[in-house]
Structures are given as C-alpha cells and as structure tokens.
C-alpha cells in the first residue's frame, strides 16, 4: 500500500515518567523523526497489546523531537499507563483534530480557565501563545485544583509569573496552611478580573462540571458565545472521523473538534456529559 496507513502507530520511546499529583503523571516521549502538531490537537497513544487512548500533548508544539503527555488515572488504559516506568516503547497515531485557531486570538485579551488535568492541553496552548507573546494584549490564566497538592506543573508557575503579559490566578477548593491565594471554585477567579468581556477570547478546559459552570459564568459576564473555546472530551477510537465513537450530533468530535466554540455546540443536548 503506497498511501499512509491511518491505523498504524509510529513508535515513540518513553524516556521518563514524572508524578504530578497522586492521580496524574507526565510521560516524556521522544521520537526518531520530528513530529509536528498544532496546539489543541491530540494524539492516540497505544500501549502495545493493551489499548489506545487519546491525549492532547502538554508540551510545546515548537518542540519537535520530544513530546509530553499528562495523564490522569481514570480507566483501563490510563491505569496501565501509570504502571509504566520509562524505557518502554509506545505507539502514537496522529496528530488529529483541529486544535486552537491561535491566529484568531491575535490582538485580543485572553482568559484561560482550567481545572484538574484540563491544564494539560492548556499548558500546550500557553507555550504556543508565549512563543509570540507580544501578539496578545494580555493572557489571564485562571487555574483551579481541589487542593494545592492537586496542581500539575508546580515548577512551571514561577516561570509563568515572570512573563510580562501573563496574569496568573489560582484557586483551590480546600487550602492548606501554606496557601495564600484564592480559596473557592475556579469560576470565582473570573470575578477578580477587570477585562472587556465582550471582546475577549475565553478558553476553557477541565472536568465537565467545571466546563459547564465556567461557560455559564463567562456568558453572564458578557463573553460572546463565539469567543468561548471549549475542548470536548469524548469516547474515541479511530481519532479521524470514521469509527463513530465520538459522535456529538452533527459532529465527529475527533475530526471537527476537539476544540469547539460554544455557539457551535450549544444546541446539542449532552455537551456537558
């Protein structure tokens, strides 16, 4: 067969595994050939003979020979992922999906609202935005976690704080004695921002419940439906618009998403489940 086989994974080496939180680990992969993807696109990761699952890389798309995946333990394949120690070979198919249309965000103020393992695709996005930081007015980052220990990428935050156009706010549902930032659900951070709601771009990623209340609050504050970008989590198998698993009304989330604006999907009944 001369054409590329869309079902055949290419091999990546798992260099190391870092524990972010008790339930979340980051997997550092390297490839023999450069691997190109756009921010917000995802890859299908195969553990040989075990199964395959979709993840959005958490590393920068500007780095071509390595890739990081941050994975929460949530099911059969992710449990097996968490048992890996480094040194194994993983299969990768992709990149798939449309990702974030970064060019559309130029000259705008941006709000990035994330919770839990939703920080993974957002980290990839933030890396991309920071490559051309001066193209955006301001990048407001609102991150939430259950407790301070539940934040991924703890070493990354000091780096973000040094960035001129970044405004980082964090909240936890339950503080510990060292916490001196906000306590409460992540949406309360939105109330602390002084921004032009009608003209900004909002990007939301996190557990379904957080996406729902985050979006509703953004709308209340005056954000436009077409300016709210959501990344949808769906059951996926093929990742490329053939197998039907990720169907959501008139969309295949894998091919038409996984990033959608709220106005694209608001009429579908089950977007939050």
């Amino acid at each position, binding site marked *: *067969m001369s*054409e*590329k*086989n*869309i*079902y*055949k*994974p290419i*091999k990546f080496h798992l260099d190391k595994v870092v524990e972010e939180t008790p339930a979340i680990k980051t997997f550092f992969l390297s490839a023999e050939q450069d691997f190109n993807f756009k921010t917000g696109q995802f890859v299908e990761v*195969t*553990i*040989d*003979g*075990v*199964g*395959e*699952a979709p993840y959005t890389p958490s590393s920068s798309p500007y780095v071509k020979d390595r890739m990081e995946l941050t994975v929460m333990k*949530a*099911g059969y*394949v*992710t449990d097996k992922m968490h048992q890996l120690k480094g040194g194994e070979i993983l*299969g990768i198919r992709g990149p798939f999906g449309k990702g974030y249309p970064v060019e559309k965000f130029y000259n705008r103020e941006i709000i990035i609202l994330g919770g839990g393992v939703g920080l993974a695709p957002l980290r990839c996005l933030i890396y991309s935005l920071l490559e051309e930081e001066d193209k955006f007015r301001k990048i407001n980052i609102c991150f939430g976690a259950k407790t301070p220990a539940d934040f991924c990428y703890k070493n990354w935050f000091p780096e973000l704080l040094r960035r001129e156009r970044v405004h980082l706010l964090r909240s936890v549902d339950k503080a510990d004695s060292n916490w001196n930032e906000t306590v409460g659900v992540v949406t309360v951070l939105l109330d602390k921002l002084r921004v032009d709601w009608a003209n900004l771009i909002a990007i939301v990623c996190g*557990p*379904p419940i957080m996406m729902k209340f985050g979006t509703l609050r953004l709308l209340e504050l005056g954000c436009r439906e077409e300016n709210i970008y959501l990344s949808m*989590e*769906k*059951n996926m*198998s*093929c990742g*490329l*618009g*053939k*197998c*039907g*698993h*990720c*169907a*959501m*009304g*008139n*969309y*295949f989330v894998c*091919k038409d998403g996984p990033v959608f604006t709220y106005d694209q999907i608001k009429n579908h009944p*089950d977007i939050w*489940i």
Partner: protein
Amino acid sequence: MKPYSIYIDKWSQGLAKLLQKYDIYAPIKHENYLDYELLTPGSVSAVVYNQPKPSTPLKAFFFPVKENVVRETSKRTKVVIGAPSCDLQALKLLDRIFLEGEYLDTYYQKAREETIVIGTDCLDIQEHCHCTTYGIEPYPTENCDISLAIWDQKVMLQPLTAKGEQFINELDAHDLFHGEIDFTDLLQKRESVRQRLKIHNQNLPDNEKTREGVIKAEDAIWKKYAATCVSCGACAAICPTCHCFLLIDRQGFEKIKNWDTCQYPAFEKVAAGEDPLKKLYNRLANRYFCKFVYKPDMFGEIACTGCGRCIEACIGKINKNEIITEICQHL
C-alpha cells in the same frame, strides 16, 4: 456502454471457469434465507438472481466484521454477484466516510478497488422492502461495475465501468451478444416492481418527513419501543450503512477494526465515567437521529436505504417503520 446478453447456461459455465482467477460470491437460497456464498464449480448453477435480498449487507465485503488493519494482506480479487440497489446506495455514504476528507482508509479503498460488484434488479419484493420511500430505485443505477437482470433464459449484462466490461469479456463465451438489446420487457418489469413497492409502503413517511418526526418525537415514544430492546446490535450489524467500529489492540502494535454500534452499552462512555448514551432509550433514539438527521446533515446522504433488514433481524420485534409511522402521525 452497450449491453451484453448471454444464455444462462453459458454464463454459468463462464463463471465456473473464472473461479480459477476470482473468488466469486453470489446469493444461494436456503430454507429460511438467501445469502452470499463463495461459489464452487458445483454451486454456480444454484445461484439465485434478481431476488431481494442477501442477508449479509454488501458493506461486509469492504468493511469486514473483523479486520487486521496494520498487517498487509494480499487477497484474490473478489466478484460479488447479486447486490441489491439498497446496498449499492449505501456505499455512497460509506465511501464518503472511509475515502473522503483528510484521512483515507486504505483497507476499505483496496477492497473497493479490488472487488467487481455486479448489481441486480429486484424483480420481486419482500415484506419489509421500502427503498422507493427514500427515492431509491429497485434496480442498480450506480456504485456497481455491472447491472444484471435475467429474463427469457438470458442474462442481460449492462456494464457501468471499464472494470465491469473487462470482466464480461473474460467470460470468453462464443455466443456472448454485444449490441442493442430491446429492454422494453425489463423496463416494464421494473415499473411494476416500483409500483408494488409504492403501494406496499404508501403510508410510510419519506426521509424528510421522518427527519421532522425524529426531531419532534417525545422521549415517551423511544421509551415505549426501547422496552423490548436487548442491545444486541443486530440492527446495526445487518444495516448496509452502519459504519461504526472499534479498534482493538493486539501485540506488535497491531489493530483489529471490529464492527461496533451505538446500540451497545458504553459505546460513548468516557474514561471518567460520563456516558451520553447510558440509557437504552437514548441509544435507540440515537440510531434514528443518526440515520435521518445527523448523517444527512454531515454528508448530504441518507443513512437508511430502506432495505428492511433491521426489522427482520430484531429479536425484540422493534419495527423501524412502525416507530416512524407513529412519530410522524401528527405532522
């Protein structure tokens, strides 16, 4: 392309010879069913022509129940004789899904390219046939290499592609006639089949009206009909347009592309536990939304070609056309 005709016994002899070169599948009748079988020299004369319809949907030749889609496969060219029009129309949607867009399914493509499809007129109708309700003619119009019909002991062969014409010439029969053929008889038969289908299904709403009915249907209707559904997935397996599958992993980074369906529990369940199709009646409704709303919107093609197989296959006795009639009755 000009048609060909050949006496049926010579046609059978020609096919028997071609078995050396091709794997030829054609409908053979058994007590309760008609289905494609791989022909042998002994079974060529038992082939049943122009009858609706093989139990197996045509898709199975291009999208097998289970297929290793990492390993290279080399198979002999297949010839499929006896594909009914409903199944040929279904290929429109499958081709769009598997061949179009950014990603080409090379396994499906190879099977499509390497199979010679011989479609046939349905010169009879079955209880649940309703192709004409959705604007489909009960005879082959496209998506096949040859259109075949039999009358007066003669096999009429209308090639539709160069591949089809080549196959006819490979029959290598002396009395193969090539030229103008008077089709008046066949056209009359076609018209009478079409009329029978129309009368048989006169109260069945067309696809546009069905679409409206599906969108407006109350949950109560889906719940009522879902009461006897056991989520066996037979309706989807036997449907010529259902394309859903699951990739199953095998050692050596191999993948098995295996038929799957939205009718099975957990088809859309995500790792964290959410499942938009958790409830049985949502799964049943999804089947109708997929066929009459989503697929027409996404691909501009209908996803039910009126073959009636899902009605025959359902062990819960759920009749698609009864549901459709009920959801459309007050429109």
